[in-house]
């Protein structure tokens, strides 16, 4: 299962934190910081898998090859200024998780029309709603973009769009996340 979904920007400021297990705020923050440090070190050409940060590697027994409850893989993708991170156990396929992040970002792109970091900041609730349509309790429930969008629209109508437009009027430089759809 997926244990956590995180989004933060190039400076390590969180934009979305979703932990599918209850964790106290302090630990959440230090975990985010550790993962950010790992992501920040990586060149763009590196693969999308991170080694486990110290906080997670403590309990994980790397020797056990079979599935277990402990999170063992961290998948990330960086789009423009944002990094999307998924922490998961071995029951998730690493390559499929990369695709899942892509679906997430594409869905956001549809919701916000040329999504950028500002949209996610101001469309905070919509961001959570999109994720809620895709992943429930750490299990993927939907990967079909149309259905995800339909689910979110059913919740808030054109609210998300409105916020994005609002944000657009104030933002200085609006650059869409490049590389969307270029991947596969």
């Amino acid at each position, binding site marked *: 299962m997926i244990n956590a979904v995180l989004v933060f920007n190039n400076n390590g400021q969180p934009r979305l934190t*979703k932990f599918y297990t209850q964790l106290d705020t302090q630990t959440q923050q230090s975990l985010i910081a550790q993962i950010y440090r790992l992501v920040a070190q990586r060149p763009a050409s*590196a693969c999308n898998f991170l080694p486990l940060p110290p906080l997670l590697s403590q309990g994980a027994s790397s020797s056990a090859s079979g599935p277990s409850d402990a999170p063992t893989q961290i998948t990330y993708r960086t789009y423009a200024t944002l990094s999307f991170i998924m922490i998961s156990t071995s029951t998730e396929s690493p390559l499929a998780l990369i*695709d899942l992040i892509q679906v997430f970002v594409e869905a956001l792109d549809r919701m916000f029309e040329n999504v950028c970091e500002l949209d996610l*900041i101001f469309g905070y*609730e919509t961001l959570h709603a999109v994720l809620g349509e895709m992943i429930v309790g750490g299990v993927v429930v939907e990967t079909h973009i149309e259905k995800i969008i339909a689910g979110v629209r059913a*919740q808030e109508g054109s609210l998300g769009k409105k916020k994005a437009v609002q944000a657009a009027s104030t933002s200085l430089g609006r650059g869409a996340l490049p590389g969307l759809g270029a991947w596969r």
Partner: protein
Amino acid sequence: MFEKSLYDLIKGLRGHKGGENEYIQSSLRECKAEIKTQDMDKKATALLKLIYLEMFGYDMSWASFHVLEVMSSAKYLQKRVGYLGAVQSFRPDTEVLMLATNLLKKDIVTSSIPNMSLPLITLPHIITPSLAMSLLPELLSRLSHSSPVVRKKTIVCLYRLALVYPEALKLAWPKIKDHLMDDQEDGSVTTAAINVVCELGWRRPHDFLPLAPRLFELLVDSGNNWMAIKIIKLFATLTPLEPRLTRKLLRPLTNIIQTTSAMSLLYECINGIIQGGILDGEENLQERDEVATLCVGKLRGMIVMDSDPNLKYVALLALNRIVATHPTLVSMQQDVIMDCLDDPDVSIRLQALDLAVGMISSDSLQPVVSRLLDQLQQASAPAVELVDTPETFETPPNPTLWPSDYQTEVIHRILDLCSQKNYSEIVDFEWYVAVLVQLVRLLPPSENEDDWAYPKEHEAIPNFRMNTALRIGTEIRNVAVRVKGVRMEATRAAESLMFVDNRSAFFPSGSNIGDGVLGPVAWVVGEYAEYLLSPNRTLLSLIDTSNSSLPARTLSLFLQAIPKVFVQVSQTGQPGDLWNSEMSLLLARVIEFLEALAAHPDLDVQERAIEFLEVLRLAAEALTSDTEEVPFLLASVIPNLFTGLELNPVATSAQRKVVLPDSLRLEEAFSHDLSEIFRKPESSSPHDSKLWEASDFYHIPELSYPNKQTRDLAPVDLQPHASYQNFAGMPVESSNAVQRRMLERRERFKDDPFYIAPSGDSSGPSTPFHEALNTSNGEVLDIDSIPIVDLKLGDEQLRHVDFDRQRSRRPPVSKLVVAGDETFETQNSLTDASMPKGGDNHPTYKRSLLQVDSSSLGNLSLANGPSSPQVPADEGDTEMARAMQEVEEVRLRMQRASERIQLEGIPAEGTLVKKKKKTKRHVSSDRDVDPVVKDPTAPVVGKKKKKKKMQEPEKLSGEN
């Protein structure tokens, strides 16, 4: 009052660059006030702001009650904020949750789908056993909801319920299975069900074997790659239980591997074949081999052909899984794997390293290690310039990034590689010792202070990782103790690390690398002092004043080594006036050093210092007496403190295996009138008498070990060891150069067992070294001036020469004897119980962060049948949980009973009527509510549509 919206808050945050914290604090104060108002709009807005700030780490646990308030709002968008607050901020200790039960019940059975989704996606985050028990009936009813969106979310929600309340699965599973079996079911729901089954599958694979035909059908026909991946993952856990599945799966999997264009699916197929053990069986050899070759071929292709680093990474991941069972197949790919060791991507390198550890053999060990060493050297080259500012280390000039923890990791892996199976893969231990010395040099400069924490913690973690420096030191010690054949080399390596003037080269100032290495190294130097090249210089290094700043643990090992080396020094010279004065001088310096430590804050150091101080003071006294002979104290008593029995490696668990004698009474007092004894005036016991006793004790075993040299003048092999004596200015030698030099040396050795010291040019870099030594130390034993070792040989000496001869004649590939850990078996094997927990059977592992505990499901049987065996409680808290559940059950039953009474008053055509009429029950006003599901005893008369829906799954399950 004019309050901020979230939008304003964020704008304000962005507008207060630099003063964010103050701004946030003031915003938090505003929120605190706003959230207490009666105005729900204001409340919800304040909560949303709090949730936003929580993301940055600002605690909002104090607001949990207000979260509940907003959750109960009538407006959807406010409700959504409330639920989001619950997801983001509720923790296991949030108490208000108990108040939420009715609210959640109401929301689960509401008519609006978005409303209903809120509890469904929130419950997994906040669920508790008692909450699960109360909400189970409502959730089960949602499984037959008309909208697939609700059904799929409910299935997943029930899974999370089952994790805390396993009984839920018993009730839910038949329904989930119906959805899974239903051909007409919405694809999303089926996928969600498959995802859940995949999570459950590995806990209780037996329960899911009957699903195999349907899974197979879905795999072949669905065309949904997401689902196919999960099904393959699930099959991987099922095939070990049902060998017949293997045969059935082989063809479709092969088919997918050959045809699919989706790399993720291809990879999971290969992975499934590996993990499912499809490659392992004996029968069908031909077919299996074909598949194995196909898989490995595809993986190789992923590494070689694709420039995509992800594929490279996962291919290595898969190879890592194969290597345990098919080492030969993998080692055929050695060439590409070794290339990955140099990949710019650290993740890929680490995987390749893992793989290298897995498939290493004595042939490939040396090339692999030297490759890694070269890497480390490249990495440390820029690092050397940056030693003073480790912070900037992240941006070395060369393009590849070298985080220092990767270097640490590589060093660990090198040591893992070499030390595995008690050094069985190492052919040439001299090479290994040289590698260790090189590694000390290559240690990354900044080691975390926390790593220096000692055994207590490590014992708890099975595969503990020591501080690298300490580990290298320990390895040198291990080799010295275990491999007698290279003890001399190991000791000399230790010696070279110990020299004070070498330290600045090995251990850059400001780092604490030395602290770790020097401890074990000091022990080696002391214990095997007879092999030292220059005991005098070593001793001076041991008592250098800079040492007193070392950590206490290292220092106490130093203290133990000092008298041992001193004894060695005292035995090398010819007794006489000169010798006497030299020794007195040396002793004075040693005593001075010890005196400084006699007041050390660490008690262990203090005690050892004082003990040796007293002994050596006596020795100094004995020297001042004007006798020609060596004082007995120096000649025999002190040496005998440290000689006698050979120290052998002992297994860590051996101590625990010692059976306590029955006569041992740890509880009993020594004497009842202990205070009386203390009150007596102390009888003055001179130190000497104590010493004599000690010497007797050590003297007796000595007789039974005649070949252990003690009092004879120890012959020192005077061959200088060029390879360990590098200077600060010198570049680190490549491993090849070291090897070459070693070969040369061996060549020289072969011709002349009574080795003649090399002249200036042949000793190469050692010459300036010796000069420096001689000028700085003055009256040190001049090695180069002694042409030939004293040939007046005792038995001892002969043994030594033989040893040297043997060593020089030894062909390079001959294996040295490696001493294993000594341990012993007791009659009753109570030992395993006392072993540190490391076995897979022990679930008492330290739990990982973020981990969802599904172990309770392991005990749950999904087998249908009214009499499911009660699982024996193995832990106290499960019992407690059960008791809680029973109480809750009773409560629930009473609650249901009261509901039933109300229902009976309603006409038979309940739902239809309820649509028009408002009844007392809240939920009954909702269109979709099906009281039938909630209470199976009530008459089943609902709307036609509902009825059909209910019957459909029944019919299908009947077919199965």
